[in-house]
């Protein structure tokens, strides 16, 4: 496998040493494509409802999506699923192309989107090789009775700006604010929390005993489009083929 060497922190934003580096492990073998993560994410992050129109206009706003691929010819068809979300790349292609620093890397390994700065050039979305960025083509609207369901911790994004998975930064902030260390698994992003088969695991890779740190050393590990040298923060675990056992 090709491994590319890059600077450890190509875009230093502060001088403080990082206390956390949030990572995720996605075990493809466990994913059943139930899409609970997709719905949990939409509820947690005040994502506008993806109506049929959004799908026909190809303007679906999903911070996490399950891609489905079919393999083989009938009757020997296999469905393959891969959950895809912002990879929080440590060498993110979306960051240097933004003219106004609306997206940058913070010192906890998060690729942060600053809604207030965004002018909507959509260059970051073009640059993203994971197709993880969403653009608000329309002003988001919710039915009247949904008003009290919106999450007060998350900004509602107006039209004309980019948004993407934040690793539920609001939950990270709540859990880590004022604390020196956070127990592994004390909190999780909405998608991880909702995953019934534990296919998604979230944690701090700097903590060597965390579940994420251990799982990401699993022999099945790989990173999506690793050859591009984007240094993603999400490690995928390869599917175990039933007939290969």
């Amino acid at each position, binding site marked *: 496998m090709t491994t590319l060497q890059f600077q450890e922190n190509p875009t230093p934003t502060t001088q403080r040493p990082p206390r956390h580096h949030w990572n995720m492990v996605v075990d493809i073998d466990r994913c059943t494509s139930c899409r609970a993560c997709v719905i949990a994410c939409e509820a947690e992050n005040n994502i506008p409802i993806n109506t049929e129109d959004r799908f026909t206009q190809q303007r679906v706003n999903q911070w996490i999506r399950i891609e489905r691929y079919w393999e083989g010819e009938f009757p020997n068809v296999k469905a393959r699923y891969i959950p895809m979300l912002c990879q929080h790349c440590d060498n993110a292609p979306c960051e240097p192309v933004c003219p106004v620093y609306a997206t940058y890397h913070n010192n906890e390994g998060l690729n942060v989107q600053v809604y207030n700065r965004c002018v909507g050039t*959509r260059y970051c979305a073009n640059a993203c090789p994971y197709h993880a960025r969403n653009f608000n083509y329309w002003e988001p609207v919710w039915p009247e009775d949904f008003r009290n369901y919106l999450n007060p911790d998350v900004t509602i994004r107006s039209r004309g700006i980019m948004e993407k998975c934040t690793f539920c930064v609001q939950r990270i902030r709540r859990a880590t604010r004022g604390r020196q260390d956070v127990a592994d698994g004390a909190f999780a992003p909405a998608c991880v929390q909702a995953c019934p088969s534990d296919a998604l695991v979230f944690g701090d890779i700097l903590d060597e005993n965390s579940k994420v740190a251990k799982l990401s050393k699993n022999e099945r590990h790989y990173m999506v489009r690793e050859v591009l040298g984007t240094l993603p923060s999400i490690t995928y675990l390869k599917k175990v083929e039933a007939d290969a056992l």
Partner: protein
Amino acid sequence: MYYRRTVSDAQINRELLDVVFRTPVWWVVIVSILGLLVAVFMSTFGLLMNQGLGLTGLNRPVFWGFLITNFIFWVGISHAGVMISAILRLSQAEWRRPMVRAAETMTVFSLMTALLMPVMHAGRPWRIFYWVFPYDFARGIWPDVRSPLVWDPTAIITYLTSSSLFVFTALIPDFAVIRDRATGWRKAIYGALAMNWRGTPQQWKLQGIAGILLSALILPVFVSVHSIVSWDFGVSLVPGWHVSVFAPYFVIGAVLSGVSAVLTLMILMRFLFKLQNYIWEEHIDALGRLLIVVAIGWHFLFWLDIVFALWTAESVETTYWQLRLLTPPWSWLFLLFYVFSFVIPTSLWLFRKVRRSFVWMFWISILVNIGMFLERLIIIVPPLMNKDAFTFQFGTYRPSIVELIIVGGTFALVAFLLLMFGKFFPLIPLWEEKEGQRLVETVKVGNVEVPAMIKE
């Protein structure tokens, strides 16, 4: 052999300033039609601002579409200004004289139009200014200089400033000519613009130096502007955009479309402004010969783009080329683009008869620019449609009516601005023509006196 016909100074003044002092009916008619179209364009712009980019045909994989294509197209058209006026001035090509100002003016107006496009295309245009002019001093946030979108406005504003200066410097002697003939408030305005021009040898010398100096200084901009625009694509990680040959490819493509646009403009000027005494077959012949060289150079880089991509034989590269070359409607658009901007023009330009026919040259130059618009579209959209290795996210793109109106409106806008300019200032520099007349010498060939050119 280039002969200059003799036209007297008085005739030059009379014919070139005709439209300035007398408003012809055709001008009123065309300007009102174009004004109407510009009004439609501006109201569509307003609608887009009001309703948001949902009105366009853009979607999730295809984030950039017709408006960016149009931006690239107009920046490309603007390259004619430098090509014609700076390079031809420095290389002392005599035949440049009637077309320098038209080319430079078109540069200025097409750049202004091009600058509108990113504004329309941004999600929140009302916040766009701190992209270019950092006002967030308090927060210590400056534009990110690593982003090609910061290089873009820098390059284009530099180009716009220098071309405007260029146009203005060349206009000063002509302002004075109009000032001397105008009356009333017009005299005051033209007088102020002429900046006390008396036509003294000292002033002529300074004006000449300024022209040469600006030509020389503008040359780096000529190479840089479209290179930088091409880096919008080259720097990103999109297969099909991430091409190292883009900078020269875009520059020479810009010259091809720009000089063709000058050709269109010259023929229209000759027809509308009745400039038969100034724009001749020799001029469009020279432009045609220049264009053959440019088109072949462009064609070489165009093939390099394909060859480099296919040589790698990587699936990410071949998927978008498959889309461009083999999948309708892109395959049709590709064929049209290739035939329009290379096959038809270069083969026809080889014939002297075609090069010297205004009708042929007019339609060919239009074809070239249709082709070049398609070229930019084909460069921008298919790689986005098949951008990702994840085939699940492949997309399609179809421009909406709003985008079509805006693209059409930009043509009306540039034509409108050019006609307005042509009403108030001469589109052919009077002093250049007169200077050209001074350089005519008659040479005795056998028993006949033949007008011949001497170099500056």
